[in-house]
């Protein structure tokens, strides 16, 4: 038993070390386009593993990421932009004085972004988890929507639909990749603890979990808030990567993309969420050919803009109908090693 754990730890350390090496190598050797895609992958990894915690591990279907990512992005942007830059940008209404005064360094900005998201998640969890599960989906969907409405209708804070521009570009692969590694470790640590077990128990059979003395409300709230925290941080990283944010960035499509990622990777598997991110975010670039005219030799199909989205939704339905477990099922990478080791 002990030996297995030790072996796991070695594997984990090796994975972390190679990830760090890769980040260094990519930052120094790859071209800008590849680095940008890697940045996107890193940020979406953070979002996917945390989204997977509530949806996959805890089995509570939520559609919130766009909302919390938006919160995180705005909090970070407001904290990173200095007073003058804000003064110059606000075009629709004059900003509130306190908005101009907001200021923090990148680390604190990310921390506040996460905390603010988590607090909102906590408030939402009270109405939502009072009833069972599936209302979460619609409430969070509505929440994401309301966040956008708030961003649009409070130009004194958010500059309305113009959004915030010229955000200092702090995010680079060291930041996004580093936070992604920390997020994955953190999430895996939760999953491999009594809390993670309780989350899975809630997913498998909520009544049985209650009968084991699990406070399911608390467990669901923990999962929801953790996921919101990391989504907020991810949003902050995104804002500092794009250097410009506006409400139309955080539409439901954002959430939909994450949903495909975790479903494809295997709901409940953190490794799966990472694999899904690489496939979908990397693959979305690759799948651009779907929008272009296709030459089948004998005949040519016309360009069909938007075909990608159709294909995406078919993939989602297909995975759910015929390959419900996705790529990884509920297993983790370390499980694969374990199985080999055992035999």
């Amino acid at each position: 038993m002990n030996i297995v754990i030790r072996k796991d730890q070695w594997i984990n350390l090796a994975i972390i070390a190679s990830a760090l090496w890769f980040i260094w190598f990519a930052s120094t050797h790859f071209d800008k386009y590849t680095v940008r895609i890697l940045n996107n992958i890193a940020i979406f990894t953070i979002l996917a593993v945390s989204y997977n915690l509530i949806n996959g591990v805890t089995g509570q279907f939520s559609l919130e990421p766009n909302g919390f990512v938006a919160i995180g992005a705005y909090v970070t942007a407001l904290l990173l932009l200095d007073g003058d830059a804000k003064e110059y940008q606000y075009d629709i209404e004059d900003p509130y004085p306190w908005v101009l005064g907001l200021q923090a360094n990148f680390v604190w900005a990310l921390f506040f972004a996460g905390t603010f998201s988590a607090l909102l998640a906590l408030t939402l969890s009270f109405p939502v988890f009072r009833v069972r599960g599936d209302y979460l989906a619609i409430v969070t969907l509505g929440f994401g929507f309301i966040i956008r409405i708030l961003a649009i209708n409070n130009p004194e804070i958010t500059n309305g639909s113009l959004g915030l521009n010229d955000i200092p570009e702090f995010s680079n692969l060291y930041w996004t990749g580093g936070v992604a590694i920390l997020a994955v470790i953190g999430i895996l640590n939760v999953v491999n603890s009594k809390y993670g077990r309780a989350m899975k128990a809630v997913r498998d059979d909520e009544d049985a979990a209650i009968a084991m003395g699990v406070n399911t409300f608390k467990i669901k709230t923990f999962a929801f808030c953790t996921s919101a925290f990391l989504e907020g941080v991810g949003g902050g990283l995104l804002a500092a990567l794009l250097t410009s944010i506006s409400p139309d960035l955080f539409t439901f499509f954002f959430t939909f993309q994450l949903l495909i990622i975790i479903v494809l990777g295997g709901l409940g598997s953190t490794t799966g969420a990472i694999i899904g991110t690489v496939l979908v975010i990397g693959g979305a670039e690759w799948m651009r050919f779907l929008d272009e005219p296709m030459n089948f030799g004998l005949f040519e199909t016309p360009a069909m803009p938007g075909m990608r989205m159709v294909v995406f939704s078919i993939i989602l339905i297909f995975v759910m109908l015929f390959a419900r477990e996705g790529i990884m099922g509920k297993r983790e990478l370390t499980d694969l090693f374990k199985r080999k080791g055992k035999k």
Partner: protein
Amino acid sequence: MILELKGVTKKFGGVTAINDTTFTVNSKEIYGLIGPNGAGKTTMFNIITGNYQATEGEVLFRSEKLNGLKPHTIVRKGIARTFQNIRLFKTMTVMENVLIGFDFQANYTYLESIFRFPRFFGEEKRIRKRAMEILDYFGIAEFADTKATDLSYGQQRKVEIARALATNPALLLLDEPAAGMNPAETKELATLIRSAREDFDLTVLLIEHDMKFVNQLCDKVLVLDYGKTIFEGKPADAIQDKEVVAAYLGDFAHD
């Protein structure tokens, strides 16, 4: 006296599922709750565990009123249960299933688990050891890393009871533990329950259809019919009771 129900009534809309039931279960007793289908036995369990709130009446556990408490709080006070149709956590191993029972007994916080504080390792080691002991007791230690739902029916039943015992209960509620078992398994189960009572210092309240099983195991039985108590006493006497026999006639026929 460990459990006491006083005039408990439960109504669903217009239907009375349990009607003014009063009984007490003494410490270390094995107490049977029997009656035909739809008699309100499982409803009774759900009231004791807090899943349902009694419309009228009181539920007392070690003289403490349980009415209004959340189900998970009641578990922590020392009442554990199993389900009529086995409800194991299907994506988890046998070990993990039992560890869920230790959930509230492991003393580390959420942040301690994220940052892997020393206490996390200590506590995990402690509960894993105890979980292993319980599995050992039930003779299923070798399956610790097997997915719980891959086991045979009889073994799954054991895992479920082991899981319930992991919550360290004083009162164990078993909902038809022998259902679906063959006679040999049933016999083994009866022995196991009896020895567990001694080794874990347990009181057992069980729902059962198999009268033979009840007869050889229970110290006392309560017979319910459409929410009403029609008999309370020794199991041997129950079979002789006219009302009980009448209520059961249909049920025995198709069992």
